[in-house]
């Protein structure tokens, strides 16, 4: 993978993440991300064929809990903190289109 990322790609990722950024910020973030990606790309130069991919840094697996119900939160208390509620449900602006 190349260490470079274009302004367009950064703008696309920002829009996917619902971040609104200015042109100046776009330039700044593009430069910064290029540095980050170049650093990461140095790993590709190493011979890693014998190294197991690592999903996360902790030496843990199968951390599980028993299937027992614990009390849930009080609904009124939770909904009181939401911007809007109706009929015991969270009320949000109309969703555009289908859920993915």
């Amino acid at each position, binding site marked *: 993978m190349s260490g470079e990322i274009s302004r367009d790609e950064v703008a696309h990722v920002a829009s996917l993440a619902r971040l609104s950024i200015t042109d100046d910020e776009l330039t700044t973030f593009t430069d910064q991300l290029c540095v980050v990606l170049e650093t990461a790309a140095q790993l590709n130069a190493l011979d890693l064929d014998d190294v197991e991919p690592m999903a996360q840094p902790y030496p843990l697996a199968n951390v599980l809990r028993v299937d*027992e119900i614990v009390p849930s*939160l009080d609904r009124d208390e939770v909904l009181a903190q939401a911007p809007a509620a109706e009929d*015991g449900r969270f009320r949000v*602006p109309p969703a555009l289109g289908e859920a993915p």
Partner: protein
Amino acid sequence: MSDTTETKQVLPDGWEMVIGLEVHVELATKTKLFCGCANHFGDEPNTNICPTCLGLPGSLPVPNEQAIHFAMVLGRALGCSVEPGIFARKNYFYPDMPKDYQTTQYEEPTNEHGAITLPDGRVIAIERAHIEEDTGKSTHLGGGGRIHDATATLVDYNRAGVPLVEVVSGPEMRTADEARAYVAELRDILLATGVSDARMEEGSMRVDANVSVRPTGSDELRTRCEIKNINSLRSLGRAINYEARRHVDLWTNNDQPTQETRHWDEEGGRTTSGRSKEDAEDYRYFACPDLPPLVPTAETIADIDSSMPALPAARRAALAEAAGVAEADTLLAIERGLDGLACETIAAGGDATAVMKHVDQNLAEGQGKLTSASFAALVSMEADGALSSTQVKTVLAELVANGGDPAAIAASMGFEAMDTGELDGLLDQLIADNPDEWGRFLEGDNKVQGFFVGQIMKATQGKADGKVVNQLMRQRAQD
């Protein structure tokens, strides 16, 4: 399956369907996948919610061991290899997921490379069966329930975080009936293993169908559409046939389908365009840093395999062998969970044909307190002519409801065997009283046969066996 979709040709000559199914199965756990909130359908909205399933800052998910166990049991039941699994975040913005991502398995699913064998012997590949969390339930206000005209959306997070396994088939089905047989088989596997209650109408089993068409015999894969909102096996068949015809129409008119998600409209009998795939496909998956991998040990898998209950395919084969029938004739018995009873009853000496007849016709409510020993004894009484078929049904219903000894029940109900001598006497009397009718019978008028049987039934209060009366009359006519 009752209403077949294949009695008439669905597509014009030269075209075939390519169908792949994605089935979301809710696991029958007590709690959600990553928190201790109840996994319970139909509760008051937002009563089963906590910081974890609401995605509040500082909360941490911990997988439910029962959910992971169920997922691996299902994997093994589907013949999958159960591999180390890694949870990933599927990032998207939609109010049904308050975290703005769904935790799922992407590159490293727990189950891969299995298959489902259909009752007709066809094998459909399972590409993967991965674990993920369900989303909340949104209700769109205004606009007559139509998403695009809604004025607001209400969200209930009771379902958010409920454990799911998504079973993904290869694009290997060629007809709507085959797709329905696949879903029915998967449902029976889920019920046999107890992994899910598999209720399509309650949404604990949800089927999305990927449909495309191609020239018959070709191996190309053309543009497909994903159909959602299918709530029954019947809808599945209708939706697939509608969509495949729509594709053929487009291709034969120098047009082509657009890759998109479409909604099945049950009332209108058609699919309608939903979200276009292009702008939503960029989910930026990455491994979830909060969740360590799931690494099944060889011992775990051996334990699952050794305690696996008999699965539908094996049960069909066993019953077909025991009863001497085709596997296709065992489906109802399997669906009703009566195959074990049928095999044991036949082994205990019950006539196979009679046992299968009662299983299919008279035991729709299940086995109840009926045992194989009492079932076999009853079938023998029926074969000996000791009970009429109406009486057998009555005794059978009593055995299901309360159990007991069929001979004792028959006696207590006054179903004593009518001996042939007694019937002979009654018949003699009837012939003497109704010489005209008897004359017509002798001349070959079979309609009057019913008159004599009816009169004898009346005189014996239903205790006589109609078949025996018919035999006696025919013997008499030949003498």
